[in-house]
């Protein structure tokens, strides 16, 4: 078996993930390489969900009975855990949403209804990049259409990086908000946060970072990032689906208006008007995803116990190995950086003229799960003149043997369609 420096003890880690043991297609070993779509869940998270429902289920922030108090303590406890995980200065800066898309839509709508100095209107500009997931494109297109603000974006270089050569023309005095992805879900690229944040701060623009593909894989320190908002989702980081996070700087959360109205987010309500609860509750209308938040709390505990630095080191070693092995496959073209530097463990590629759907289907027959398509980042496919890619993405439980299985699988695909 291939040994690489920096790898985690995957034999031990994999014991925590029951699903990794299940056979697929008549007894084939599952090789799960679709972690950028969603991660698998460790037993610790599954147990937390079960225990919550079996022992403490109740609605939160209301009711005086013991279950309501336990549920509230667990829900708010999850907020503390997440705040610690991302080094938030205050737990009140952590807003629970249902996913990263909702988090990004929430920011766009806060700004859409904001007064000065945050107001986005026809005199102002919004900046994104060409490598965004659709969830960080469409909310800004909607905001642009509704307010008349101009939508601009950074293009990409041939090797899958942001082209920041025109940064002073893209981010200008008119720019109100710059929203970009920290780690691309299709290219794997890790973007240079500091350069973008510095320019945005120079012109007084707010910075929103989509950390959906970063939070699961590296140390995420919102203070070090110096952003104003950071969005990510729970299910890609060992948590359940249905829970996402928007972190925002406290003074912004105080100043900006709520978006969704309803229960939980108010202070007092009369038939004429209402006053709002302080953040984060101001932005959490209605019964929140309670069990899911508890599950996310268990997930960040789990990740912290393994160690985010160690997870990043493991994935870096694996990415280095995988890039090298994949480039040995004839006709394979990596879409994105072709080294492991400043890139995450998500590798997109094309294989000659063989359509990714066919690649994915034949890999699946061998038990290998990858994602095929445009990965909700169609502009990237257009930029590189390809209809779609095959994407393999790794996580803390992935092994060099799984990289080898992928490479063997791809040889089989080539023979099949050759």
């Amino acid at each position, binding site marked *: 078996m291939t040994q690489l420096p920096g790898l985690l003890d995957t034999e031990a880690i994999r014991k925590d993930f029951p699903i990794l043991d299940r056979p697929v297609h008549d007894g084939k070993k599952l090789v799960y390489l679709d972690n950028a779509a969603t991660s698998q869940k460790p037993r610790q998270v599954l147990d937390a969900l079960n225990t919550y429902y079996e022992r403490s289920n109740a609605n939160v922030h209301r009711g005086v009975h013991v279950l309501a108090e336990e549920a509230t303590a667990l829900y708010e406890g999850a907020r503390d855990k997440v705040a610690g995980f991302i080094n938030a200065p205050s737990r009140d800066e952590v807003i629970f949403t249902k996913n990263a898309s909702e988090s990004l839509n929430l920011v766009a709508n806060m700004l859409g209804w904001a007064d000065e100095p945050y107001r986005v209107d026809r005199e102002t500009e919004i900046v994104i990049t060409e490598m965004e997931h659709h969830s960080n494109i469409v909310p800004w297109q909607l905001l642009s259409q509704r307010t008349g603000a101009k939508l601009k974006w950074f293009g990409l270089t041939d090797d899958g990086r942001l082209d920041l050569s025109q940064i002073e023309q893209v981010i200008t005095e008119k720019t109100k908000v710059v929203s970009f992805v920290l780690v691309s879900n299709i290219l794997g690229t890790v973007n240079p946060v500091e350069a973008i944040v510095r320019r945005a701060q120079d012109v007084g623009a707010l910075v929103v970072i989509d950390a959906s593909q970063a939070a699961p894989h590296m140390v995420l320190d919102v203070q070090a990032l110096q952003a104003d908002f950071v969005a990510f989702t729970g299910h890609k980081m060992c948590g359940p689906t249905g829970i996402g996070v928007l972190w925002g700087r406290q003074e912004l959360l105080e100043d900006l208006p709520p978006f969704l109205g309803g229960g939980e987010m108010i202070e007092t309500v009369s038939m004429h008007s209402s006053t709002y609860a302080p953040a984060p509750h101001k932005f959490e209308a209605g019964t929140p995803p309670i069990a899911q938040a508890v599950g996310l709390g268990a997930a960040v505990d789990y990740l912290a116990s393994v160690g985010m630095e160690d997870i990043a080191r493991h994935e870096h070693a694996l990415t280095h190995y995988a890039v090298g092995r994949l480039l040995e496959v004839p006709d394979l073209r990596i879409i994105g950086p072709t080294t492991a530097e400043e890139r995450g463990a998500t590798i997109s590629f094309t294989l000659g003229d063989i*359509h*990714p*759907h*066919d690649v994915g*289907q034949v890999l699946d027959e061998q038990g290998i799960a990858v994602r095929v*398509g445009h990965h909700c980042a*169609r502009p990237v496919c257009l930029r590189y003149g390809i*209809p*779609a890619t095959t994407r393999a993405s790794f996580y803390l439980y992935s092994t060099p043997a799984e990289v080898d299985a992928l490479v063997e699988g791809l040889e089989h695909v080539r023979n099949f*369609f050759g």
Partner: protein
Amino acid sequence: MYQDVILDHYKNPHGRGLRDGDAEVHHVNPTCGDEITLRVRLDGETIEDVSYEGQGCSISQASASVLNELLVGKELGEARRIQETFLELMQSKGQTVPDDAMEEVLEDAVAFAGVSKYPARVKCALLSWMAWKDATAQALGETAGGKTA
């Protein structure tokens, strides 16, 4: 799923390339990016030509090739019956085992029976058939404008 018939049509497609037509449509499968541009040329009730250009997986490309082979030269009524039979087969979720009668109607297209077990791939197989239906309606003046989806 990958029957030899499908692979043969994929590697050696029939009637590929755009030629003159009475109507042209462009259909895409938004979940995977398969695309087809398809033209229909009618001579009264007879399908004189179905020409197409597109990109996509082996299933979508082979299906367009089979469509060309099956429908060109047919009367519209018969072509519709073939299209409906193919649609029925593709919507059968793998439950339909083509019998002799179906095989007589669909010829090579029965090879797609296995695809119907894979919900994600059914749309690939149907892409050209939906485009043909749309283009034919347009050629007959039944609808205006193309659609994508």
